[in-house]
């Protein structure tokens, strides 16, 4: 499938890119990063124009984010009655809203490019938890700009060695993900120990 998509970038250029970034922001599994790499390489080889590529990719991504946010809002509103009826659910909702207030902007920004697999779900959450549209959009555009710039830039540097760069990038992403999980689990372990040390050699109850 990705070969076919790469062919579309070659044939349709920026339009294909806009469509793909749009779909990827709605959690549809398209290899958007790979295609942006390709677009960057095509800019370097003179097959595509940089400004078109950037505007198309950015436009598609921002549009996709907006749709996700809107969907989250609609779903949030419709579920609001049901959510607030139970005190436990209402507490969860309140906490979600609070987290969104505090770290929401940063979460939106980082999930555009660093943890992009979470992006579409953060869109839904942001809309559902009632994150302000202006903040969401600002953080979204900023993050998407980093994403587009980063991958297009790497693609341009990769030039004619896209396959090799794509492999390296895939491993780098995997490294980042597993490093994050390792750090998170390590931190959880640390807290677990600090809270109540379990006597490892305690004798069992008779």
């Amino acid at each position, binding site marked *: 499938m990705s*070969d076919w998509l790469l062919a579309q970038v*070659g044939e349709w*250029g920026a339009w294909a890119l806009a469509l793909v970034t749009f779909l990827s922001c709605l959690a549809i599994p398209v290899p958007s990063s790979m295609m942006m790499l390709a677009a960057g390489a095509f800019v370097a080889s003179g*097959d595509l124009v940089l400004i078109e590529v950037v505007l198309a990719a950015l436009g598609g991504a921002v549009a996709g984010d907006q749709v996700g946010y809107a969907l989250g809002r609609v779903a949030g509103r419709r579920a609001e009655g049901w959510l607030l009826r139970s005190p436990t659910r209402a507490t969860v909702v309140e906490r979600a809203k609070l987290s969104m207030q505090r770290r929401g902007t940063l979460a939106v920004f980082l999930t555009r490019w660093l943890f992009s697999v979470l992006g579409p779900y953060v869109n839904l959450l942001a809309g559902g938890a009632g994150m302000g549209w202006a903040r969401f959009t600002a953080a979204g555009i900023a993050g998407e700009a980093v994403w587009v710039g980063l991958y297009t830039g790497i693609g341009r540097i990769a030039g*004619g060695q896209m396959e090799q760069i794509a492999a390296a990038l895939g491993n780098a992403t995997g*490294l980042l993900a597993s*490093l994050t999980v390792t750090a998170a689990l390590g931190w959880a372990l640390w807290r677990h120990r600090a809270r109540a040390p379990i006597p490892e050699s305690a004798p069992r109850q008779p």
Partner: protein
Amino acid sequence: MSGQPRRWRLWALRAGFVLALGLTLLFGVRLAISIAFWADPAHTDQALEGWMPLGYVSQSWGVPREVLVEAARLPEGSRPRRTLAEIAQARGVPLSALLDEVEAAITNWRALPDE
């Protein structure tokens, strides 16, 4: 036994941590290898595929674009950004035949003495 579920959780966390750490090391090694592979000049040419536009091939194999245009026998007045697959289709030849032609032309060009 209130200690039991706690103990189980601790072991689960530990196992998860070791697993994640292992994956981290695995990806780190793979990343190092892929970078070394990329940096090796012998591997710079990317195998020809249908989705590649001529400019991309030119960049990947270090061959001037005009040489490729001639080799691919691009019809006059074609859109500049043509992928190999499009060219093959426009000429009515199978893609593999076009790829062989282009690769042969590249080899010939590379064999030319420097002037």
